[in-house]
C-alpha cells in the first residue's frame, strides 16, 4: 500500500501528489544485491527518503488550495518502511520504489489526476538521475541494474513521461526533480537508451499551467548532506511555505510562475555561503497556476550589511513599523551581516552607534518581500 492519503469528493477538482524517494539501490556500489558490471560510480544515498518524507509531511500538514484541495498522496520509498503521519501519528507501510511499484502507483495517480480538468498534479522524485542526452533526464528506480540485459527498463524516461502527461486532463501540473543530471562517460558510448515512459506520449500536446523544476542544471550535480534533507527539497519546502509566494488580493499565493523563480533565488543565495557547492536549479514554468494558498504571511529572511563593514561591530539595528520597534536584527559574526526573519512589510531600519564612532542620520526604508530581502546601509564614520 503506497496511498498514504486519499480523500476525493466526486466531481470536484483536487490536488494529487506522487512522491518517490530512492536511496537504496541494491545493484549499485555498496548495494545488497547482485552488482551491476559497471555501476558508473553510483552508490547508495541517504538523503532521498528523508527528503521525500519531508515533502510528504509538508503536503499533508500544509497544502491548501481551495480550488483544488488535497485529494491523494502516493508515496514510494527505498528502503521501504513505514510512514508516520505528522498530524495524528498514524502509520502506513510504504512500498519500495521499484519500477513495478512506480508504474502501479503512477497509474493510480494518473487516473486520479485525469478525472477533472481543474485538478493539480504534483510529481516529486528524489534519487539518482543521469542524462544520456543532455536535457533528457533518466530517473533511476530502486531496482535499476537488476537485469543487465535490459539495464534501462528500471529507469524512468522523464522527458517522454512528461510529454505523455499532455494526455492528462489536469490543468495545472508540477514536476519537482531532485536528482543529478550528469552524463557519465560510460553513457556516451551507448547508442540509444530505452528507458521506461510511465505514460506514452501522444501527438496531442495541449498544455495548461506547467512547472518543471529541476534541482540542478543539465550536466550538474544536485547536493544533499548525508542523513539530511537535500538542499533543493529544503528550498522547495521553504518556498511552498511562503517564500515562493506573492501577494494577490490580500492572499499570499504560491504559483507555477513564481515557485521556480524563488527556489532558484534561494539556492543561488546559499551558493554564496562558504564551502557550499554550486547548485543552480533549472525551471520551466508558465502561467499563474495556483499550487498553494498560504494560511498566513510568510516569514522572510532579511540580511542587512553596513558600509563600511567595520561599522557592524559598533552598531545596533532596529526595525520599526509606524513608529514602533518590531524587531532587532542580530549580527552574524561570520558574514558580518545583520540578520532577521520578519513578516513581509515596509520597515524603517534605524542604525544606532552607542559609541558614536559612526552615524546614520536617516532611517532606511526596507520593503521586505519573499523570498528574501538584502539591504546595504551606508553609514558615516565620525572623526
Amino acid at each position, binding site marked *: 500500500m503506497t496511498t498514504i492519503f486519499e480523500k476525493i469528493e466526486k466531481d470536484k477538482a483536487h490536488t494529487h501528489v506522487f512522491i518517490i524517494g530512492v536511496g537504496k539501490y541494491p545493484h549499485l556500489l555498496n548495494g545488497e544485491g547482485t552488482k551491476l558490471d559497471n555501476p558508473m560510480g553510483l552508490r547508495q544515498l541517504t538523503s532521498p527518503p528523508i527528503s521525500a518524507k519531508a515533502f510528504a509531511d509538508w503536503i499533508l500538514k500544509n497544502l491548501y488550495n481551495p480550488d483544488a484541495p488535497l485529494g491523494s498522496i502516493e508515496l514510494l520509498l527505498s528502503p521501504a518502511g513505514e510512514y508516520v503521519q505528522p498530524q495524528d501519528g498514524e502509520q502506513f507501510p510504504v512500498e519500495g520504489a521499484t519500477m513495478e511499484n512506480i508504474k502501479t502507483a503512477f497509474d493510480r495517480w494518473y487516473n486520479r489526476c485525469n478525472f477533472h480538468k481543474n485538478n493539480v498534479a504534483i510529481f516529486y522524485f528524489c534519487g539518482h538521475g543521469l542524462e544520456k542526452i543532455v536535457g*533528457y533526464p533518466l530517473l533511476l528506480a530502486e531496482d535499476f541494474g537488476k537485469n543487465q540485459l535490459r539495464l534501462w527498463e528500471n529507469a524512468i524516461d522523464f*522527458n517522454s513521461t512528461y510529454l505523455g502527461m499532455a494526455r492528462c486532463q489536469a490543468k495545472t501540473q508540477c514536476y519537482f526533480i531532485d536528482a543529478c543530471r550528469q552524463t557519465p562517460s560510460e553513457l556516451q558510448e551507448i547508442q540509444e537508451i530505452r528507458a521506461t515512459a510511465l505514460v506514452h506520449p501522444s501527438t496531442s500536446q495541449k498544455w495548461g499551467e506547467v512547472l518543471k523544476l529541476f534541482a540542478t542544471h*543539465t*550536466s550538474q550535480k544536485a547536493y544533499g548532506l548525508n542523513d539530511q534533507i537535500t538542499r533543493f527539497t529544503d528550498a522547495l519546502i521553504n518556498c511552498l511555505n511562503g517564500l515562493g509566494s506573492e*501577494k494577490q488580493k490580500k492572499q499570499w499565493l504560491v504559483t507555477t510562475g513564481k515557485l521556480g523563480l524563488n527556489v532558484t533565488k534561494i539556492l543561488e543565495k546559499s551558493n554564496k555561503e562558504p564551502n557550499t557547492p554550486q547548485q543552480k536549479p533549472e525551471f520551466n514554468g508558465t502561467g499563474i497556476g495556483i499550487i498553494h494558498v498560504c494560511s498566513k504571511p510568510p516569514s522572510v529572511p532579511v540580511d542587512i550589511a553596513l558600509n563600511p563593514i567595520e561599522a557592524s561591530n559598533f552598531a545596533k539595528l532596529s526595525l520599526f513599523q509606524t513608529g514602533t520597534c518590531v524587531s532587532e536584527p542580530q549580527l552574524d559574526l561570520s558574514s558580518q551581516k545583520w540578520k532577521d526573519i520578519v513578516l513581509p512589510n*515596509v520597515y524603517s531600519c534605524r542604525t544606532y552607534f552607542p559609541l558614536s564612532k559612526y552615524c546614520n542620520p536617516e532611517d532606511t526604508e526596507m520593503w521586505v518581500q519573499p523570498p528574501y530581502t538584502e539591504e546595504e546601509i551606508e553609514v558615516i564614520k565620525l572623526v
Partner: protein
Amino acid sequence: MSKLFLTLTGTNTISHAPVYVEILDTDLETVAELAILINNKQKIQLELGKYLIKINLPSGKVIKKVLVLEGQLNEAVLPLMSSTNQRLEWHEFIGNTYNWNTEQEISQIPSIWQRLWSYDKKNWKVERWPTKWKLTQNKIAISFSLELPPNQLQLLQIGGAEIHWRFIALPPESNCEVLVSPSVNKPDFNDINVAVTSNNREAETLLSYLISGNIRAAKVVGDWFVEKLLFEKSFNALGVTIGGYFLLKLGDDERLAKWINKFVNLIQWLPDISIIHSWFLLREDDVARVKLARSCLLEAMKQGIPVYTEGMRLLFDGLLLFNQDALARHEQDVEIEQALELIRNYATVTDWSKPIMTFYGTAPESLSLRNTGIPEKDTIGLVWLTPPTDDKWPLVQEIFSQTVESRNLSGAILSNANLIKLPEALASARKNQGVSNLAYTLSTLAEELPPDLLLPAVSAFRKNRVYTLGAFTKKLPPDSLSEALSAARKIKTEHYHAFARNAFTEKRSDSHALIDKLSKMSNKSYFAA
C-alpha cells in the same frame, strides 16, 4: 488620481529596449505592471501615496526605488546601469555572462580561431570572413560585430589548439554582436564562453526574460511586442521567431493562429518557423493538423538547424512524439525515424544550457564533442581571435589581409573578393605581375585553385617561403611522402611543395594520375600548353 511620468535612462547601447517594471503599494500588492522603453517618458496613473518601483532588468538584476506621489503631476527619472565598457553594456543588460573576476584572460588562451558557415541549397559551406579582421588587443574578453546576409542560416565556428570546436547559430538578423570570454564555469581551464546576440533590442530583451524564467516579465514585454509584430507591416525574421516562441510558451492559440497566417509563408528558410508552426498544430488532436505538423517538422529538417535551442528541443521532442505514435500503432515511420536519428546525433553534442543553438563538431554535419586543434581544410575564411602559437599562421593571415586590401588591383573579377573566382581572374591578372603573384598564392593557400593551375601559380610566385607555406598548411600522409618526393624531383624543385600538397594532402582519388602527369611533363611544355 495622480499622474507619474517615469523615465528610465540608459546609454545609446540600451536605448529603447523594453524593461519590465512592477509598481507595488505599501500593502506589497502589485498595482501596475508595464513595459517601459528606455529613455522614453511613460505616463502612469496611480492613486496618491507611496510606491515601490521595481525595475526588473532582463539580466535578472532588480533596481528598486521608492516614490511618493503627492500632487497631480509627478516626474521621476531613474538611471538604469552604468557599464565601464560600452561595448559590453548590451551583453551585460540582457544577461550574457562573462567573467571579469577570473585570473585567466582570453589573451592567455592561444590559437583561438573562428570562421563562418552558411547553409545554401541544403549544403553547409565555409564563407569568407565578411569584414577585414584584425587581431584584437583586448585581453579580457573579445567583442565584435558581424554583418550577415539576409535570409540565410549562418553558423559561427570557434575552436582552438585546446578549445573544443563548436558551432553557434547566428541570429536571423543583419547585425549581431559576439562576445568571447574565458569560461565562467571553468575559470582555471582553457575553455571559452561565446555569447551571440543581435541588436534587435525588443526581441532580445523578450528572449532574455523568457530564458531567465521571469514569465511575468516576459508576458508584459511580450504582449506589447507581439501586438506590434502582428499589426505592423514591416517585420524582421528575428522578431517573428522570438515572438513565435513566446506565444507558444504562453499557449496563446488565438494570437499564434494570427502569427502563423501572417509569417509562415513569408519566412520559408528558417527551421524555427516550421517548428513553431508544427507545435501550434499539435495543440489540437485533429488528424489533418497532426499530419501537417509532421510535414512541418520534416520541412524544418530540410531547412537546416534551428537557430534557437528551444527550437532544437521542440524538433527533437516532436520527432520523438511521431516516432512513438507510429510504434504505438505497430507501424514504422521511416522518414521520422531517419530524421530522429540525425537529430539525436545533434542532441548529444548540443550545449542545452545556451539559448542560441550551440553544438560541437568539425563541420555542421560532422559532429564530435572533443575535437581540438587548427583546421586543415576550409581555411579560406579562418580568422584568429588570439594569436596562433604556430608561426606559419601569421603569414597566411598577412597574405589574406593584403589581398583583401588589394582587391581593386586586378580588375573586375577580383574586386568582388571572391576567391573561388580567382582562376578566372588570372588571365587579366597576368598583365600585372604583382597581382597575379598575389592571386596565385592566395588561391593556392585558399585551396580553391584547380590542380592544373597549381604549377603556373607556383611559377608565377617564386617566393619559396610563401608557396611552401601554402603547401605545408596540409600534412602529407606518411605513406605518400616518399612517392611525392620521388615524383617531385623529376620536375622543378620549386614545384615540389605545391604539387605534393595538391596531390597528396587532399587525398585525391586521382593522385597517382596526377603524379604521373606532372612527372612526365616538362615545365616548358606545360606552360606552352
